């Protein structure tokens, strides 16, 4: 009985240390895990993917949050931007809060580092911080270029190449709002009934449960909820977008996709003979250097990119290295942040549940002994 009594009086700082360890350890020792996708994430993915390669379709990402909710929302933003850059989907970004504007730059730069061919004003356009949410939401229903006037770099929006084929919500048919507080409120109330705009949200898990009535009614066409939503989207991009495939739920339940979503370092790129010849032909200048690292096993050519020393990776250049890593199904850290985080989340949730159970156990045992 004494044990349970002492357990009840455990100092809170011990609890803090346990929960901190439950997060630090799984972050430092990564392991592969799978996040099942939910319909609300899949719907959003499919909607965005249906705009692929179309001149007359675009999405808008509204960054309605500040740094305080970044750990949950930032990986979503990165994953969606990556999806757009990967599948050639026009994307606009804006924030109605001064504190959200730097997050847009941060997100775009994180993804752009891996996509050097993507250009501002052509493939994407950042409107930056624009005050007066209401005016923006209503105004864009009429004309995006005149409402936004200039982009974050001070260029006239109407002169930008990305605007070809884009006038208002008829073309920019989907807005995804990332928020820790309002979750698409202004868009659902004003733009949805007046202009028929499709609205989706990326919300912190705190607000996710409240959005289900809107999801069922179709007022929200999709939702990413918290870090799990981000992890799900990251997975979908890795399974479909990076392999230039469109979404299919059959493929998602195929166990073979496990190779595509490993979040530990994958270092061996495997080629068939024909694939390898095609690869070499794409980079004639680096041919000799690539050959140097080639190994052959059972008729399959393998290159371990992690063994290439830095001076050679520089010589090979960004595109060769990128292709090798893709072939190895290696995922860069910034594109798997949420999934690495979900590993820690697993352990932390178990610890939390153990806390609840232990706390209750102690409480009831003590109550029983008090009665006696």
């Amino acid at each position, binding site marked *: 009985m004494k044990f349970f009594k002492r357990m009840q009086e455990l100092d809170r*700082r011990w609890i*803090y240390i346990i*929960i*901190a360890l439950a*997060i*630090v350890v799984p*972050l*430092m020792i*990564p392991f592969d895990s799978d996040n099942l996708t939910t319909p609300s994430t899949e719907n959003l993915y499919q909607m965005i993917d249906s705009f692929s390669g179309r001149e007359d379709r675009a999405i808008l990402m509204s960054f309605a949050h500040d740094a*305080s*909710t*970044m*750990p*949950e929302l*930032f990986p979503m933003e990165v994953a969606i931007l990556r999806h757009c850059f990967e599948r050639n989907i026009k994307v606009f970004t804006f924030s109605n809060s*001064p*504190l959200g*504007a730097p997050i847009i730059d941060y997100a775009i730069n994180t993804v752009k580092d891996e996509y050097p061919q993507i250009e501002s004003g052509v493939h994407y356009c950042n409107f*930056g*911080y*624009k*005050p007066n949410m*209401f005016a923006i939401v209503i105004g864009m229903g009429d004309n995006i270029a005149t409402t936004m*006037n200039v982009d974050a770099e001070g260029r006239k929006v109407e002169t930008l190449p990305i605007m070809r084929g884009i006038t208002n919500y008829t073309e920019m048919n989907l807005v995804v709002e990332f928020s820790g507080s309002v979750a698409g409120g202004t868009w*659902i*109330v*004003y733009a*949805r*009934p*007046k202009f028929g705009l499709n609205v989706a949200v990326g919300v*912190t*898990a*705190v607000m*996710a*449960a*409240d959005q289900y*009535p809107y999801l*069922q*009614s179709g*007022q929200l066409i999709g939702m990413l*909820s*918290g*870090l*799990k939503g981000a992890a799900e989207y990251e997975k979908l991009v890795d399974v479909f977008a990076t392999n230039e495939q469109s979404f299919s739920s059959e493929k998602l339940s195929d166990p073979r996709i496990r190779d595509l979503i490993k979040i530990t370092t994958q270092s061996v790129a495997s080629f068939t003979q024909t694939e390898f010849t095609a690869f070499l032909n794409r980079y004639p200048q680096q041919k000799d250097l690539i050959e140097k690292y080639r190994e052959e096993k059972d008729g399959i050519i393998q290159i371990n990119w992690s063994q290439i020393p830095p001076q050679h990776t520089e010589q090979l250049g960004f595109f060769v290295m990128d292709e090798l890593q893709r072939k190895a199904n290696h995922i860069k*850290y910034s594109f798997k*942040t949420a999934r*690495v*985080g979900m590993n*820690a*989340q697993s352990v*932390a*949730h178990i610890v*939390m549940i153990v806390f609840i159970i232990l706390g209750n156990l102690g409480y009831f045992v003590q109550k029983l002994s008090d009665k006696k």
Partner: protein
Amino acid sequence: MSFELFSNLIGAFFTLCIFSFLYKDNPLYQMAEQLLVGLSVGYSLVLTYHRVFIPYVYQPIVIRHQFMLIIPFLIGVLYLTRLTRKLSWLSRYPIAFSVMGVGSSFALSLHTAILVQMRQAMVPLESINLTLIFIGTITVLLYFFFSKAHSGTYGKFVNVGKWYMMIGFGASFGLTVMARVSLLIGRIQFLVLDVLGLMK
């Protein structure tokens, strides 16, 4: 030491200042807290000047000579009368200007939050789940209807709403735990990975 590492170390220092509150309230936390407020306010002031005052007040009035805009700007200045006791009633004018938007939100929120939701609650009960949702919505609504005493058969029926709400709150609670943990994970990822570079 690279500039990036220096910047990250500064970020790590302030992160730890805030975390130090877990041990107990201390001067480093107090300092960080006030600094945070000061920085946020200063940041917004500069951005409001560059992104709002210049393009929407200064340029239209001074460069494009839209002198009418002086009027709303002066009405806006009336906000400052809040700071005096005698003239503070003047600040009601700019407030009234922003409150009048309630007219449009009246109509459109009615549509979004009531009509569409009610329509969805009245779909044909073709499946068990739809029936359960229907019963839940009705009983939760009745639970908050206090004009009739919750007793007898009616009371039992209304009580069903309470159980629905408990499950709903439970789901919200589970997700809230998740959200808070995620935020901590984000900060630890910053400390462990970006600053100490322990994993790539």
